[in-house]
């Protein structure tokens, strides 16, 4: 089917998402909960675009293309709202994102500085019981990518989202750490994490050394 992205017409496969269409047209949208190895989730709401005929911007990842759909990735409302959402994410973390994380790239792409919002952040809780994987719960933004990677890619079902609302977080097994869960140490969770909340301990050591150097 044919769609139009920012004035450029292109052909997409039936059932394609708006996000796929935008990327096919050479565009790039900010995303935090999206990983092309996983089913679209629609949680972070940072891939909003305007679609002709829709009353408000829609998330590109969970919206399917329709024949003749006109997609505008530069819509002012969408950009303004996405910026607010990313600022809200920054406000829940006790420190700015590490430079090599996906979150840092999204923040940079939107030109968001520190963000306007202040308030409660997530409590520092570092779990280093596993020999290869560390979990810094305070950096979790509940995008669910690790949980879905463990479910959809690995089939290990070792992870779950816990809590509710602002207190949502992720944990392994019965909150017993990776080792005492059905974790197979595949690292898919660390690989997909956009904030470094779940991180290979090797990389965590490097990050700490780098932080020590800058101090």
């Amino acid at each position, binding site marked *: 089917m044919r769609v139009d992205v920012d004035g450029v017409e292109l052909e997409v496969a039936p059932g394609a998402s708006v996000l796929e269409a935008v990327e096919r047209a050479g565009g790039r949208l900010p995303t*935090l909960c999206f990983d092309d190895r996983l*089913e*679209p*989730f*629609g*949680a*972070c*709401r*940072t891939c*909003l675009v305007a679609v002709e005929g829709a009353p*408000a*911007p829609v*998330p590109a990842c*969970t919206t*399917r293309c329709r024949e003749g759909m006109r997609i505008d990735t530069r819509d002012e*409302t*969408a950009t*303004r*709202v*996405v910026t*607010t*959402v990313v600022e*809200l*994410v920054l*406000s*829940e973390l006790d420190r700015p994102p590490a430079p090599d994380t996906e979150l840092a790239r999204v923040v940079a792409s939107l030109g968001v500085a520190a963000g*306007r*919002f202040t*308030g*409660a952040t997530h409590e520092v809780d570092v779990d280093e019981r596993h020999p290869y994987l560390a979990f810094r719960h305070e950096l979790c*933004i*509940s995008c*669910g990518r690790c949980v*879905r990677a463990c*479910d*959809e890619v690995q*089939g290990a*079902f*070792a*992870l*779950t*989202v*816990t*809590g*509710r*609302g*602002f*207190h*949502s977080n992720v*944990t*392994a*097994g*019965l*909150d017993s750490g990776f080792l005492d*869960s*059905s974790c197979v140490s595949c690292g898919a969770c660390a690989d997909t994490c956009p904030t470094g909340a779940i991180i290979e301990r090797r990389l965590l050591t490097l990050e700490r050394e780098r932080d020590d150097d800058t101090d």
Partner: protein
Amino acid sequence: MSSNLVELIRRHHGPVARTALQVLKEAVEDHGEVTDEDRLRAAEVSGLPEASVHGVSTFYDDLLQPRGRRHLRVCTGTACFAADGDLHVEELADGLGVGLGERSADGSVSLAETVCLGFCHSSPALRDGDRVDAGAGAVERALRGNTSEAPEPGWRSTLAEPVLTEPGRWLGLARALAEMTPAQLLDEVLAADVRGRGGAAFPAGEKWRFACSAAGEQKFVVANGDEGDPGSYIDKYLMERNPQLVLEGMALAGYAVGADHGFVLTRSEYPRSKPALERAVESARREGHLGDDISGSGFSFDVTVLEGAGSYVVGEETALLACLEGLRGTVSARPPFPAERGLYGAPTVVNNIETLANVPFIALRGADAYREISPGASTGSKLVCFNERFAAPGVYEVRFGETLRELCEVLAGGIRGGIKAVQIGGPLGGILPSWKLDTRFDFDALAAEGCMVGHGSIVGFDERTDMRALTRHLLRFGAHESCGKCFPCRIGLRRAHEMFESDAPVDRDHLEAVLEALEVASLCAHGGGMPAPIRSLLEHFPEELGLG
């Protein structure tokens, strides 16, 4: 929700087996809290992975608040707030010497927060074990240890021929089975233009049509009895006082879409709903209204009743299905819509309790008779309910198109000292100041004022009400009940609540940015709708909100 998890459960047991959530609920009932042993047992019974069970056990209010030998729950709904500004919460916590969500060191008593008990006609309300006490003196009685059963609200229809307040007699189903094909029944419901009574106002017939055309041998009907709107006790009335009508509506939906099984999800905050519906199912089976080959028609239909565990967002249809499956009650992006892929992956019609209760009248009397009920307004009739501030609170069946003044001041007798404002249709509904009471009670007229019919609750606030405290009350509820899935709602409602939590002036630009993100970007109507009452308050009572 994860289709893999759903598949794991489906393979492990049929749709009517005990879910992980039910096992965890039983554990709390039995020994006051969920232990790891309980989680492991729930995993074994349900087929869910241990981690997923852990996730479930940390989502629902009922599983999180530890219980002492005596467990008290205090209602923090909007009607109770309107009654005394939450003074009853303080008095109860102080008197018991136990904070909200805490259990005393000796395990003798515990206090939990609950929203809402549906005794809004008699606030403030509290629950002592399974007994609900409400109204003047309830807190004192609770502190003395001698609570008494609160009287249920009265009800009355203003229609000569009620649609919703006459006992269900299964005549609509009898007529449909004898005289109509499923397609004819669907056409009749489409022609009646029944809009959903649970808040979204989506045409019920359209949902049915989608489910009809969805591929699948097995289809389900789900009655959404998760009436979480603080201030509303309409579905409670229907489930507990007129359950036959609800079951008949479900059976009709099943006949129209080709489903042979229905589920009702009731709220744990309404301890009387599930037993009432289960008794009704039993008697309907005995009398041949439910079961196999009903009246020799070849149509079979049965109903299972399940109870939730304390979560407002579970009233959203995808979260409701997750709760029925025993999973975390979080919202899923649509598509797929439940009509295409719903309960256990099967095409599912999800309708609100009151919506379904409209269908027997349509099946028996026809769409034309239904459309004539409210001339020049939305079709059919509506149940409304009023809070304790009004002189004559209760459940009323009314026509659409009456002014709110007629409803509030004539039908419900007004509020002593005058009405300052009313919130209509639940926590996501706008708030009308007294000078707007000539607005008509109708889907379109209310929408034009930033309000909605919603569930049909009308919560009146008297002149003493502190509108900044009301804003804080609403945002606290919104943040507490966010399922946590989408970012704008998960963080935005928390930030909005924080802005009003202290007495510091609120930065209007920051508030506007958060409200816009909630409205535009939220995944479901919870985040999307919470700004509506806040915008009303900003518009009508700006000087009271303490803006910077």
